[in-house]
């Protein structure tokens, strides 16, 4: 007997605009599945496939415009018929949900301990018992110093810690059914791994049915026993994870799997890309002729150091991946290169010539040479402009010689989309327009700031392939900023790893992946490897949270506080040496990473 049984669930939203409500296709269309106690069912699909609607239907939290039919049975209770007091009773005893954005699930005006205690008091505990239990719950979600965290407000803790608090609240309910709706989307890779580990640990002791909603097949593989693949409101395939992901029977599952960029795939061995675009044999263009050199760039935001003496070199036609977690300063560095952010100190050279750091002071030829693709598809284009106008303007101002139609075609935009307002485009289409806008002229360098992080997996792959294609055809260099090492390794020729405003490691992609690693790079690599999950032990929780740090306090290595291989008495007090290894790696670390190449060669091979 399954704990949760959903039978023939159909949800249609009544459109306020159209009078003919029957015409609107249902968001969820005859979906049936079941989850046993202690089991985790993965619900995967792209945005808009109806997976969150299913969660809301089970939670009985759909808006009044939704029309629901079908049966939802949890442990013998017919959820669909609950109302009033019995629904509230069910909510406080049987059901818990963890949302994508923890900050929207927490009350910003209440201390987090009090929020957890509130749940416990609703369940009947008295005030003291609830407060004590809240702290022990915080301890169980692996919070260092739970008593101190309990006294903080949500905005005073990091995103990962907020999600732990939400999970603690879910635990307080001791639910029969736990729904996790993209619980780690938006968290840094290292934090994501910790949260997933926590969920895996707690699942075993809760013996609840878990519904895990995600767009990420990699997460399903790690977290779930069974998986249901959802497309356009219908379950296309359903079965044990091992069967579905290894030998998918449905065409759509195969497409999803093909779209995802698996670990280890790069632009050199991507069959889908190479079928469309044969790889151009790259003749190394005049070795030692850098396109862009950044040296000693410093940027403080008040007391926070975003950039702390950064050096970076990008050669013509090269893709440099810049990775690091949020707050590491990678976006700031990208913006400094474009001139949108003016550094406090430092120098930027374009083709050997020093250029103004302030965009307003740059000559138009320099400005045209460095363009940018932004992160958020929803803010990157003016919603009041039409695609044609966006491209026409970019061609005019950036001195492009192509027609709007040619430019659109080169970025795989249909001619009919040219007349549309940009606000009517999908996320992927918006990013295509944004890319077309950036390459309308003769940009030599395009800074791409997390251009695919807000897109669906399948769309991500097509946008990455488009970037590679354009970069190779037009011989444009890319600085690809991302928190996702899998994405960076796919298209980068070189990788720079940033932590707390320092580039701690830099080198050719293969060398960075092969090692020896800076301890932070090692952590990133472990977090990005989907199979590196070790379900036995609890990971080291980084109590520090974010990586932003205050000015004027660094004497040793920036990573010393968090480093598992820290050398006591050295790392925290002495700045690490810059090591040049024979693989072309440049690493700032005290650890023994093998022999440095001798100084003479180092001088030559040192990238800057």
């Amino acid at each position, binding site marked *: 007997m399954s704990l949760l049984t959903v039978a023939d669930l159909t949800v249609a939203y009544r459109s*306020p605009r159209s009078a003919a409500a029957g015409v609107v296709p249902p968001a969820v269309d005859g979906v049936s599945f079941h989850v046993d106690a202690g089991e985790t069912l993965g619900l995967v699909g792209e945005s808009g496939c109806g997976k969150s609607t299913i969660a809301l239907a089970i939670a009985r939290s759909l808006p009044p415009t939704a029309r629901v039919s079908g049966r939802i049975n949890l442990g013998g209770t017919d959820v669909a018929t609950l109302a009033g007091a019995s629904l509230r009773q069910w909510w406080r005893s049987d059901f818990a949900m963890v949302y994508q954005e923890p900050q929207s699930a927490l009350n910003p005006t209440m201390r987090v301990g009090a929020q957890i205690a509130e749940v416990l008091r609703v369940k009947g505990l008295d005030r003291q018992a609830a407060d004590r239990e809240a702290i022990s719950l915080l301890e169980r979600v692996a919070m260092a110093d739970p008593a101190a965290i309990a006294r903080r407000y949500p905005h005073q803790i990091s995103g990962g810690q907020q999600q732990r608090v939400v999970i603690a609240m879910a635990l307080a309910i001791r639910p029969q059914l736990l729904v996790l709706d993209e619980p780690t989307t938006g968290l840094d890779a290292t934090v994501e791994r910790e949260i997933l580990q926590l969920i895996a640990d707690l699942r075993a002791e809760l013996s609840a049915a878990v519904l895990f909603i995600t767009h990420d097949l990699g997460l399903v593989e790690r977290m779930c026993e069974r998986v249901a693949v959802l497309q356009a409101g219908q379950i296309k395939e359903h079965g044990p994870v091992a069967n579905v992901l290894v030998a998918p029977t449905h065409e759509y599952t195969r497409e999803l799997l093909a779209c995802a960029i698996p670990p280890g795939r790069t632009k050199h061995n991507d069959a889908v890309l190479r079928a469309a675009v044969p790889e151009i044999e790259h003749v190394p263009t005049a070795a030692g002729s850098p396109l862009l050199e950044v040296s000693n760039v410093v940027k403080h935001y008040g007391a926070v150091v975003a950039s702390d003496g950064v050096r970076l070199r990008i050669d013509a036609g090269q893709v440099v991946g810049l990775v690091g977690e949020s707050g590491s300063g990678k976006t700031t560095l990208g913006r400094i290169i*474009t*001139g*949108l952010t003016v550094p406090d100190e430092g120098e930027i050279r374009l083709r050997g010539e020093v250029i103004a750091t302030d*965009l307003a002071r740059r000559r*138009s030829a320099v*400005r*045209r040479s*460095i*363009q*940018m693709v*932004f*992160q*958020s598809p929803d*803010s*990157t*284009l*003016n*919603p*009041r*402009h039409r695609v044609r106008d966006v491209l026409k*303007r*970019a061609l005019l*101002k*950036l001195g492009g010689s192509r027609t709007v139609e040619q430019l659109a075609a080169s970025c795989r935009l249909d001619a009919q989309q040219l007349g549309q307002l940009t606000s009517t485009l999908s996320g992927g289409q918006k990013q295509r327009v*944004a890319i077309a*806008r950036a390459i309308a002229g003769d940009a030599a360098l395009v800074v791409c700031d997390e251009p695919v992080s807000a897109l669906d997996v399948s769309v991500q792959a097509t946008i990455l392939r488009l970037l590679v294609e354009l970069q190779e055809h037009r011989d444009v260099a890319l600085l690809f900023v991302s928190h996702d090492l899998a994405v960076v390794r796919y298209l980068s020729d070189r990788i720079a790893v940033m932590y707390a405003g320092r580039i701690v490691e830099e080198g050719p992609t293969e060398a960075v992946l092969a090692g020896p690693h800076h301890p932070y790079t090692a952590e990133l690599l472990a977090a990005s490897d989907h199979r590196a999950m070790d379900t036995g032990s609890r990971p080291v929780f980084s109590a520090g949270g974010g990586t932003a740090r205050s000015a004027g306090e660094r004497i040793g290595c920036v990573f010393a506080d968090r480093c598992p291989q820290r050398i006591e008495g050295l790392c925290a007090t002495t700045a690490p040496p810059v090591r040049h290894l024979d693989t072309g790696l440049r690493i700032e670390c005290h650890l023994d990473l093998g022999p440095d190449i001798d100084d003479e060669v180092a001088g030559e091979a040192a990238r800057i």
Partner: protein
Amino acid sequence: MIGLRAARDPSRRRVTLVIAVTVLAVWIASALFAGLLAPFSPSAQLPRLKFADPSVHHLFGTDGFGRDVFSRVIAGARPVLTIAPLAVLLATVAGTVLGLITGYFGGLTDSIAMKILQSFAILPPLFPAVLAVALLGRSTTVLVVVLGFAFTPLITWTVRSATLVEREKQFVEAARLRGESTAYILGREILPNIAGSIIVESTVRLADAVFSIATLAFIGLGAAPGSPDWGAQVADNRVNLQFAWWTVLFPAVAVASLVISVSLLADVIRERRSA
């Protein structure tokens, strides 16, 4: 309040819109065709018919000079519907330009401009108007300029807040990377995205302006006493309220209906935009 409730239900919102537009259309028609619609001249005195009750011949009755109140109420639409829209237009243009510039540039320009605007905001809204009319005398031009001036800070405020949001958008940064001029960024990138807020704000100010004109006339600083201005009519006849209520009620209702219909229109526009 009415607008809020209307917002929940689209069909009720439609009813609100129809009522507001109808009332507004009646007053616009009155302003344009007062001569055709009014049965009498607003200043024609019928000495034998002082304080006549409302009747078929004199729908709204007559006042103490034997003037037809219905005709005077119709005639009163023109001054108000000339001055209020012109004043709001002036305030909208000035406020939009100021708001765009202060919001986009921020920094010192913004601080100085905001301090000046705040120093006006601490005064009662009609105080500068009263002062100006007292000094410059009353004329349509003075009223338009004075009211336009009085409403400029509020519109600047709205435009500035909206601009502060828009200037952070990535399409504005993309425009800067393209080398667009500030004028282009303000006019073509930002303005189209905040036009809706400006329209809502201006409509709200239009209702405000109608009320302010009536208030100024009531305290004797707008239209001349004896003219068929609604505020002046209420002021002139308030002593007669106890025995000739119609001389006060109808011009007052005229002011109220115009203010409310414009406010409802503003609500509907606001709800449409957020829906």
